[in-house]
């Protein structure tokens, strides 16, 4: 089963980002082929040097470093949303591929299930 996870939530405003990450790792553990797309405020999950301990939270960025251990190597970012934040792919903690609208639509099309949070 090919699963596309779309992470669109701020890393620390609520629990959505953490819960989505947990769900994704469980799916990968049970053999799903997982791809990950970051959009909107979810792109902030990818910034390095997060001091999440100030908010009493685990760093999302550091947890995302473990993705290759779960065979999650297809990581994408919404090019338009990245630009709206004034960021570039080189600013991010993980190597990602930036996709335009057409490429994102194609990405959704080739997956069996999509979860966005």
């Amino acid at each position, binding site marked *: 089963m090919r699963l596309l996870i779309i992470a669109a939530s*701020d890393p620390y*405003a609520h629990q959505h980002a953490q819960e989505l990450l947990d769900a994704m790792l469980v799916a990968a553990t049970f053999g799903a082929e997982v791809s990950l797309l970051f959009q909107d*405020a979810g792109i902030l999950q990818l*910034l390095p040097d*997060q*001091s999440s301990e*100030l908010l009493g939270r685990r760093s999302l960025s550091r947890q995302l470093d473990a993705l290759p251990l779960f065979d999650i190597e297809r990581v994408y970012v919404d090019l338009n949303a990245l630009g*709206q934040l*004034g*960021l570039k792919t080189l600013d991010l903690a993980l190597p990602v591929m930036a996709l335009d609208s057409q490429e994102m639509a194609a990405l959704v099309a080739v997956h069996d299930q999509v979860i966005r949070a």
Partner: protein
Amino acid sequence: MTTLHILYGATWPKALERLFSPGDAILLAGASVALAVSPQSPMQHFLQRVGTGIRCLALDDAVLARGLSKHWPTNITRVSDAEWVALVCQHAKSLSWS
């Protein structure tokens, strides 16, 4: 009778522009700190339109937690939790936008 507008969400609340009065201040808390980093964001456009007199601040912990220091703009001052309390006291009203 000034108002402190406290933003929490990652989306710029367009309606704030219609409620804003001279002397009001904006404080970015939580996810709203991301609104500051792009010079082309709707919030930065609003700040440019209103002019240099406007006070716009952000909670330092919210900025640091998200790793945004490196990208932080010079026109938005970062404040501590204690300074946040002082800001609330300095304004007649606080209005939360989530």
